[in-house]
């Protein structure tokens, strides 16, 4: 008879050395991977440049914009287009085509806004006439400022 049997050995939960080490290693590797993947994925996201604070810009002077013509201008960091209809009315739109972000231009022969990338056509009200664009162009508010004969075309976003 041995004395050893006096202390009863209880069979605990079956975790052997291998499982224990495997778990330890896995946790270690996964944490390392996480500590690398997290900063790298955050790094890949470009920092927000911030919406342009400018809500309105001087697009051009009225004198420079002949009837039945259009001019591109910088609105924040996106292009805008200001047009003057044959009747002399001044309108302004975002020049970013609603289809795939190309820049639209004024077609003098048909008096339409035209996107050359996929042949999208808008009328002088910014509404889609034909082609792939899903929506009409964003319209800006136009104000004329200054003395008669030397007015600036002031373009601003939103309703006024």
């Amino acid at each position, binding site marked *: 008879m041995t004395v050893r049997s006096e202390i009863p050995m209880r069979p605990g939960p079956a975790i052997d050395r291998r499982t224990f080490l495997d778990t330890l290693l896995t946790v270690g590797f996964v944490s*390392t991977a996480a500590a690398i993947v997290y*900063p790298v994925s*955050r*790094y*890949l996201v470009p920092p927000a440049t911030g919406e342009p604070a400018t809500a309105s810009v001087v697009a051009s002077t009225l004198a420079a914009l002949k009837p039945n013509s259009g001019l591109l201008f910088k609105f924040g960091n996106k292009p805008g287009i200001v047009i003057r209809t044959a009747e002399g009315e001044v309108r302004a739109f975002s020049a970013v085509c609603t289809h795939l972000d190309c820049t639209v231009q004024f077609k003098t022969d048909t008096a339409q806004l035209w996107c050359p990338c996929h042949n999208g056509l808008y009328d002088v009200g910014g509404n889609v006439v034909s082609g792939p664009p899903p929506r009409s162009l964003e319209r800006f508010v136009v104000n004329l400022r200054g003395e008669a004969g030397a007015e600036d075309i002031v373009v601003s976003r939103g309703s006024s």
Partner: protein
Amino acid sequence: MLKRVIAWVDERVDLSDVRNFIAHKTVPIHTQEVWYYLGGMTLFLFAVQVVTGILLLLYYRPSAAEAYESVQFIVSQVEFGWLIRNIHSWSANLLVGLAFAHFMSVFLLKSYRKPREMTWVTGILLLFLMLGFGFSGYLLPWNELSFFATKVGTGIAGSIPLAGKFLLRLLRGGDDVTGATLSRFYAVHVAVLPALTTVLVAGHLLLVQRQGMSLPLAIERRVKAGEPLREMRFFPNYVMRDVLAWYIALALLAALAAFYPWELGKKADPFAPVPVGIRPEWYFLAMFHTLKLLPSHILGLEGERLGVFAFGLAAALLVLVPFLDRRANRGESSPLFTIVAVLGLIYFVTFTIIGRYAK
């Protein structure tokens, strides 16, 4: 899952060679075994450089007008940009340090002897490439210190006899260090050197795997005399230790990058006075200081030229070491080469320290 992928590949491309190779590869166990890990750690840091380098490319702009600002943007605006840049800078320095240590240990253990001459030559060339990476990368943030250090560094190339003027213009992309130099260094740093390094690393590793680890001379002699050599299996025993060494390198790197940010300094201004204490990266300090100490004329020759010539000769001799050390090739000890290596090491360490603190 992984097993199934391997089985799928195996079914199409017979992998039994690779599997047999890994299963039967062994690594000797002996007192000098610790040096075996340096090469692996250097390789690991190189991988870190490739990854962080590519990440930096996403925001870096290589022009005199924008380079400094883009690095500033990376470290101040981009999330974790400071971490990526610090790791790239610290890893570069640790990498050169480890490559030096690896080189020195191989030199002293005479592991370059037959049949490993090609491993040595590719290794030395890789060491030179790493110095090239350091030199070209140093300029890229386009700050005051790196600008003037590059002026001096490329100026040294200009003192090489005959080809000097040509080399200087080739390096600088003109007569002076300008935006054109930056473009060149950028191209060299991100395209030319990585391509060359990839080829050489592949060759170096292939040779190491193919030939197995070298034994130190004394141990090799005892093994030849019939003493049994203790060995461990490459996989998983040795790989496990290698990975542990990488972990240590990674931990060290992360700690350094987090607690000791790399300074950006002031933007380079070619018309500003040279800042006091202009010096290159630490691994060029010994050379830099030596050239500083040389008198303007030695035996009727220009001191600077003589110095540059001596360094060039030393570099060439270094490449040729396995072909010069005939005794080691025969398996005999070659104390002359040990003495030269130790003297070289002492020179490098003392001149680096003096160069660091000299006015």
